[in-house]
């Protein structure tokens, strides 16, 4: 049995600046989240890569050859930005909702809740984790896509900013879902009944110009449409909607979700009795 070393007198923890506590805390949460993604890579990275490969094979190579062109580019090229964005959306959301909810379920979220970390730091840490996973999967899907079509980036800044902002939006949405979730069913309802249908109808596989005017207007109520089109604009240089409107919608969603999550956590919703 090891001999206990001498113990120093207790540090005056409150003497440490709260700014430093939050900075070190943020790095810790991000490191923990990235470590988690890497530890369970078979669950976090591999499945989306397989799914997207199937999409490219079925919709790109098999069906796409019969469709020909869409939006002035080959169909496989047209769907590539949408599929990349779809993987970012589902993985950013899924990463945060599962990580935060499992912390709630196993109670180890309390480690953070009893600490002096601000809720802003906790939110930022989880969001960065979600963005990291979203971008990691996006990179992998891009590699897969490059086997099926020639990809280029027309506007790098737009491409990068839209993908990061979208990952942030859906990380926050995942966090909100996890805050309200009481069981595993609760964390699958949003992806199954809202996220997936909205993504499929968000212009991933088609241009809304193919729809009747009525359905075009209905589609404009789907925020994912703006994200997919803004990203497509960044990569291909063409879009169904004005890029300025897309940024406005994405930024509004980002701010609204951030404020909502912050208020919920401060009130203790879903985390305090």
């Amino acid at each position, binding site marked *: 049995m090891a001999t206990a070393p001498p113990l*120093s*007198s207790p540090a005056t*923890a409150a003497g440490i600046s709260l700014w430093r506590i939050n900075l070190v805390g943020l790095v810790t949460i991000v490191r923990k989240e990235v470590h988690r993604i890497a530890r369970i890579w078979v669950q976090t990275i591999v499945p989306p890569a397989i799914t997207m490969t199937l999409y490219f094979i079925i919709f790109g190579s098999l069906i796409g050859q019969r469709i020909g062109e869409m939006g002035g580019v080959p169909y496989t090229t047209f769907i590539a930005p949408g599929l990349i964005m779809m993987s970012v959306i589902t993985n950013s959301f899924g990463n945060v909702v599962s990580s935060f909810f499992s912390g709630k379920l196993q109670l180890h979220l309390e*480690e953070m*809740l*009893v600490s*002096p970390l601000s809720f802003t730091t906790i939110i930022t840490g989880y969001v960065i984790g979600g963005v990291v996973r979203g971008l990691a999967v996006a990179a992998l899907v891009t590699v897969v896509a490059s086997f099926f079509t020639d990809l280029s980036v027309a506007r790098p800044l737009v491409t990068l900013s839209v993908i990061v902002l979208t990952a942030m939006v859906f990380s926050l949405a995942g966090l909100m879902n996890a805050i309200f979730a009481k069981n595993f069913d609760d964390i699958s309802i949003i992806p199954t009944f809202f996220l997936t249908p909205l993504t499929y109808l968000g212009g991933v596989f088609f241009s809304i110009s193919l729809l009747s005017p009525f359905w075009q207007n209905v589609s404009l109520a789907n925020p994912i449409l703006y994200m997919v089109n803004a990203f497509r604009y960044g990569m291909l240089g063409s879009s169904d909607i004005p890029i300025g409107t897309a940024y406005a919608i994405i930024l509004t969603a980002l701010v609204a979700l951030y404020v909502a999550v912050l208020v919920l956590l401060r009130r203790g919703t879903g985390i305090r009795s």
Partner: protein
Amino acid sequence: MYALELKQLRKTYPSGVEALRGIDLSVRQGDFFALLGPNGAGKTTAIGIVTSLVNKSAGDVSVFGYDLDRQREAAKACIGVVPQEVNINMFEKCWNILINQAGYYGVPRAEAKRRAEKYLKALHLWDRRDKLSRTLSGGMKRRLMIARALIHEPRLLILDEPTAGVDIEIRRSMWDLMTRINEDGMTIILTTHYLHEAESFCRNIAIIDEGRIIENDTMVNVVRKLKREVFVLTLEESLHRAPDLPGYQVQLRNEHEIEVEVEQEQGLNALFQVISDRSLHVASMRTKSNRLEELFMRLVDDKAESVN
């Protein structure tokens, strides 16, 4: 300045259950303080409020002078807590659990590693550092939770049932550690169902029942309130019936053991004199139950009777 001050602390759950009915409590800096009470008395709710895991309904909480409402982060930075329920990440290694917890309190990584080694060794978990926490036994998990609570070297350590499931040898070394860190200046608040532990280590005590403090004094004064004790005496002689000891109630436990009730004012010298007069020889002696346990039961029972 007090390490912890609770003023008129109230908690009513949405179900209508009043867990705390306006408790006032002050714990001095450097104290080793026992917060005792039966199950459902309100201890864990009070600890939950202090550690920000439960929303209070009314009242004030301050930790080393930091108001929990207005200076929440500074107050929380002073506290380390070992909760009653196991709340460690089952899929994480012991080492990472400690390093992460240190990070949440702003401890730089190099220092966190040094402290993790120190506390894992102190709690006899060093050889388990690279194991997933779910592979640990119940007692080991509890020790890991203690190491986690100590990793930022808090000024106030709250231990909610820290020794449940911990074997005797390790429990003893844990208490050695707690005594040392208390001597170094850390304030400790302990809740436990092992009342002999509370009596052995704590200097001050509060007993809470049905959301109210029913006793709050030094341990010495509280134990002094016990008017009567029952001793078990092992005799060298073999007996077939209880001996007649005038002034004492005596029961035969077995042929070598008797139970004797002693009032506080009677004293033990008089008892031994009476035993000697009967030509009996005492080989050993012990109290039938822990004194604090006896008093605790009496206080809680008295209160239940007064309610009925």
